[in-house]
């Protein structure tokens, strides 16, 4: 149950004056139920990469194996792959179109040729998974808030019962609470269904809080592929390529420089708090 990416290269507009290599020898193994954060500056190849994973783009060279099968084999069922690897694009709410939310979520499974009952069961299940209030199911999707619309759009992909869910900047443009709701929902979903999640994000704080592995793309190369703590330890290199570490990483590094014996590998505010408190005499603050 995994995806193996073996030295894929992708060149845009090959053979023309605009030829540009978007991916260079990218290799990785993605295991079942992983929660991966994919980061990189705009134009680093993130979107090109994720579109390879469900066959929307075909690599110029190299191979991709989905559950042991080469997806570029002549008789490989690409349609099936696309229902197994669900891709939620940026601003997915722009793709909502039906008169009510329930119908919108039914659209995908209906097109798989499922019976009416199976389609509706899947839609219910998907809407339940994204935690949308049942009173809203038969309302127009256009009356919802930004975060709710986005959850409906994600439900539309979940109704296809994918094994892998790829989200391209699912929190762009949402308020802090909306960001937390979407990512909390994705995390919960992963725990409940065992789905694999790949999260493309520009928010280092969000990535640090939720994922357990980070892949960093730079100019088409997979530059780092490691745990969040190990990746953010390279915060200086990340800055060179237009990224950053979460703010707490900077706070903890500055404290360390000022002579505090704090843990610089913390990823969240809560961990930072605990690390700072462990350096302070408990008599000073115990209530």
């Amino acid at each position, binding site marked *: 149950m995994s995806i193996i990416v073996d030295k894929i290269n992708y060149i845009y507009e090959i053979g023309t004056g605009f030829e540009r290599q978007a991916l260079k020898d990218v290799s990785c193994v993605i295991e079942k139920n992983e929660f991966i954060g994919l980061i990189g500056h*705009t134009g680093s190849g993130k979107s090109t990469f994720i579109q390879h994973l469900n066959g929307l783009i075909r690599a110029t060279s190299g191979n991709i194996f989905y559950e042991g099968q080469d997806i570029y084999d002549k008789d490989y069922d690409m349609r099936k792959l696309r229902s197994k690897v669900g891709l939620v694009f940026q601003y997915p709410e722009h793709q909502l179109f039906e008169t009510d939310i329930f119908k919108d979520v039914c659209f995908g499974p209906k097109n798989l040729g499922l019976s009416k009952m199976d389609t509706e069961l899947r839609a219910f299940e998907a809407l339940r998974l994204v935690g949308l209030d049942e009173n809203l199911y038969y309302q127009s999707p256009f009356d919802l808030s930004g975060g709710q619309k986005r959850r409906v759009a994600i439900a539309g992909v979940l109704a296809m019962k994918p094994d892998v869910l790829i989200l391209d900047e699912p929190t762009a443009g949402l*308020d*802090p*609470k909306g960001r937390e709701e979407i990512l909390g929902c994705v995390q919960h979903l992963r725990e409940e269904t065992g789905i694999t999640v790949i999260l493309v994000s*520009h928010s280092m704080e969000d990535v640090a809080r939720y994922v357990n592995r980070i892949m960093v793309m730079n100019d088409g190369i997979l530059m780092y592929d490691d745990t969040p703590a190990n990746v953010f330890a390279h915060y200086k290199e990340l*800055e060179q390529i237009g990224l950053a570490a*979460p703010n707490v990483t900077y706070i903890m590094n500055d404290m360390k420089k000022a002579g505090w014996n704090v843990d610089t590998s913390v990823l969240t505010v809560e961990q930072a708090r605990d690390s700072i408190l462990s350096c*302070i005499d408990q008599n000073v603050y115990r209530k």
Partner: protein
Amino acid sequence: MGIVKADKLTFEYIRRDEEGNVDSITTAVDNVSLEIKEGSFVAVLGHNGSGKSTFAKHLNALLYPTEGTLWVDGMDTSEENNTMSIRQTAGMVFQNPDNQMICTLVEEEVGFGPENIGVPTDEIWQRVESSLKAVGMYAFRKASPNKLSGGQKQRVAIASIVAMKPKCIILDEPTAMLDPAGRKEVIDTLHLLNKQEGVTIILITHYMEEVIDADYVYVMDEGKLVMQGTPRTIFSQVEHLKELRLDVPQVTELVYELQQSGLPIKDGILTTEELLQELERFR
């Protein structure tokens, strides 16, 4: 009078059914009164649907008040005769840079606005040069906008507004689609314009870190103005902000967490330096 003054500004979205009868009324901006000083850097916070963008669209007369009055540089925005001069006084930059680019070269993009209001050719070129220099994009003047990074595109979008010589620039989530470096580029550019050219900046954002250096912050909820003050006073109210679906910068949140654990540390810390200084007491 300040560059922007709102007096009991109210805006209602009215939805009608097929017969034209009123179906529902949503009050997007509700009785907002405020005054923004010329030359200041102001941030507007609020969750999705709180009315921020509707308010912003009033500032360059894309929408008119249902009730109340809004003056931009002393001009009443509901007077149709003022519309053109208001749009030259207050320029707007939106979220997605790709939707704002229409020309094949960066310099043409920046010259497009002045050309449309009949600025003489020589002056257009002067304005293109000075505004591209102001945002640090002069080296890219002969480049195609679609070859730029997100942050660069957004800076070109800002230069296009600067070329119109506005007194005030309104930015509606200009960094939502940018990577960390792009976000920093844009915010630094805005501060530079504010300090060097004295342009009033009104920044709408969901990133609390971008608000730290603002002069004044307004917080909207359900169309109403619910909080206002300096970043320090606003971010001292961690719980209130979270109730409003907002957040605080990570440093401030860390301070809040330390307080909750019983550490007697002061409120309203916005930077790591302040935190380090404050923590010295506990060493």
